[in-house]
């Protein structure tokens, strides 16, 4: 946290966060960290002692939304958002995920927690007429894209044939369909517009942001539809005055913790313009040189699953792209959409529209 915070403050031109920053948000869950009341361990390394510091138990993009709201109140000028993963210290990751299932109805099944993803992937592929091949196309695209991203841990020169050869762990998903964990800390500095202009002339604007929870009950949720992403996108698009999402963005970063989710999220964000998402995928329209590049950094399949920092991994890539700093994978982008999902078994996600001035 200290290292990421130091780099973020240097990037923003903040000399002493203890004097300059008005509030700090950290994003973490107790069970990921192995500590009860995780937020105790946050203020010192961020420069937040005797400052308004708090934790949200959610993804970093929802942390960003929380900071965004605070600045809009008028009470805060500069707010820092931190999220991290120390997944390598979790010995029994799947057991922790199982503890997020309903303790009465679901947890006693004691299944591989990804059973839910397998069931939903099956339903979703059936709904859109997709196949195993389409999942492999996404894995190939994202892991190949990640080769150009120095921060990626799971980049690979891999083909659809390689992916198809693997045995499924939960039908129809095989190990390469599921993002693998990484350790990371990411810190983002937000400022009110007039204050931001004093710090830098390379400001990335949050034009709109939204978040939503659909339904924690796996029995009652809308499977194969990513309603949470749809609701969050509607909120973000309204704030950003996005009328035609399929045409207005130069690129998209969507959550691909599990391969099929990339397509589900592209549809929920209304990025297909009424076209068939499978045809767009097959035609390479989501590739770096396609009409709407999706996850040019490699997504979570290529970069890795950053637990609650997943949304900030997307924000970081968005900032690099908009500031023309995404060496090797640069896309000419002025307006982008980013989206996160908290992973199984949740139906919570967020969407943000980021832009940069010409």
């Amino acid at each position, binding site marked *: 946290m200290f290292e990421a915070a130091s780099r973020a403050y240097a990037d923003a031109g903040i000399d002493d966060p203890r004097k300059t920053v*008005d509030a700090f948000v950290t994003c973490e*869950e*107790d*069970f990921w960290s*192995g*500590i*009860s*009341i*995780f*937020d*105790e*361990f*946050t*203020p*010192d390394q961020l420069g*937040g*002692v*005797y*400052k*308004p*510091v*708090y*934790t*949200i*138990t*959610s993804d970093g993009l*929802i942390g960003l*939304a*929380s900071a965004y*709201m*605070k600045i*809009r*109140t*008028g*009470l*805060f*000028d500069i707010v820092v958002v931190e999220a991290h993963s120390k997944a390598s210290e979790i010995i029994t990751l799947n057991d*922790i*995920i199982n*503890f*997020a299932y*309903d*303790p*009465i109805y679901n947890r006693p099944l004691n299944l591989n927690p990804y059973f839910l993803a397998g069931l939903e992937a099956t339903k979703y592929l059936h709904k859109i007429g997709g196949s195993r091949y389409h999942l492999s196309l996404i894995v190939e695209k994202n892991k190949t894209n990640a080769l150009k991203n120095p921060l990626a841990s799971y980049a690979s020169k891999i083909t659809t044939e390689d992916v198809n050869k693997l045995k499924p762990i939960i039908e129809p998903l095989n190990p390469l369909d599921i993002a693998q964990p990484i350790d990371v800390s990411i810190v983002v500095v937000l400022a009110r517009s007039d204050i931001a202009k004093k710090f830098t002339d390379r400001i990335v604007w949050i034009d709109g942001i939204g*978040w*939503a*929870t*659909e*339904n*924690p*009950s796996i029995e009652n949720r809308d499977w194969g539809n990513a*309603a949470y992403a749809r*609701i*969050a996108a509607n*909120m973000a698009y309204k*704030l950003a005055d996005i009328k035609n999402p399929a045409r207005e963005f130069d690129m998209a970063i969507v959550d691909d913790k599990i391969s099929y989710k990339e397509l589900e999220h592209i549809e929920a964000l209304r990025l297909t313009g009424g076209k068939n998402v499978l045809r767009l995928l097959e035609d390479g329209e989501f590739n770096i040189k396609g009409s709407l590049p999706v996850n040019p950094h490699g997504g979570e399949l290529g970069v890795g699953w950053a637990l609650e920092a997943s949304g900030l991994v997307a924000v970081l890539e968005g900032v690099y792209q908009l500031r023309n700093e995404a060496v090797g994978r640069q896309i000419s982008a002025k307006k982008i959409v980013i989206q996160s999902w*908290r992973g199984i*078994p*949740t139906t*919570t996600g967020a969407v943000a529209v980021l832009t940069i001035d010409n």
Partner: protein
Amino acid sequence: MKTNLNIKNRVAIVGAGLTLFRRRMLDTPKELAWGAVKMALESAGLDIKDVEAVVIGSAPDAFDGVHMKGEYLSDGSGGIGKPTMRVYVGGGTGVFTPIAGWWHVASGLFDVVIAVAEEKMSPAQPHPQYVFKHIWDPIIERPLGLNLIWIFAMEMHRYMYRYNIKKEDVALVSVKNKANALDHPAAQAAGKITVDDVLKSEILVWPVQRLDISPVSDGAAAIVMVSEKIARRLTDSPVWVEGVGWALDSTHWTNRDLSYPKYLEVAARMAYKMANIENPRKEIDVAEVYDPFDYKELHHMEGLMLARKGEAPILTKEGITQRDGDLPINPSGGLLGVGNPIAAAGLMKVAEIFWQLRYEAGKRQVKKPVYTGLAQAWGDLMQVGTVIIMRGG
């Protein structure tokens, strides 16, 4: 504390709800949350369909035994299909939840927001205190096998030593709060006890005794927070959120002076500045101060600058903090009397100030006229202060 006071949108509380506070409640955490939300909505004359966003507060996940407790509670909290967010500052969460609700509305993004706090401590086995074995630095402190009561005993000891406070003077807080709770319909640990009862109760970790400390509890609380235009439409007696403040001290609790909660003073100054309060002792009419232990009420009164350092026991002894006193503290009965389902207990305090400022507290209504009230909570490693200031309409 540098604050920008160009706040654009006023925020009002228009409804509050509370479940019973009990140990070993049969309701699931979701059901507890919904019980409080339903009562809060009904009291505001609203329906769940009117709610635009939900803020959930709950302390350690380990109590309820669920990973991602905010997700688990989201349907019971009324958050299905809505922007829903769980916030967390340990034991300070209960008062922090409405602070987060405040910025949801004050941001201009939402007009109607539910702030709900829930805790179900009693399922933790073999005792809820074991959850606190995992709140320490995993390298330096956890191997010592610390118990939470041990460090609070250190703080209590330090506070008493610094200001030469007697145990019987501290015990007066427990006597007052448990008696106040006799009038609270949700109370778990109300009672007519004496100072002698406290002093003769079982010693847990000296100087903490059984009756110095709040119970293990399950329960939930909720409030409805709305924008000014909605508030004017719904009620003639909105309660306005006029000030919010919170601050965290360093993780390294061993390096600070335990006799005074400096972090709380910082949080209080932030809230007072926003509420334009210059002399809290005169301008705060009624306060719900966090009292998981009896000495904490005194400690927090001083951190909030409602008493000078070392003066809170004197005010208590003189009856100033009684319901009919000049500065009523914890007219609800507090955590010592009503109970301590951690996050829900903090929000219960906000609900009590809401009822006090609307003159709806029934037998608990304080005698003096009330216009400005304060609720406060505390938590983490004796580290965080959360403060909210409310004014009647």
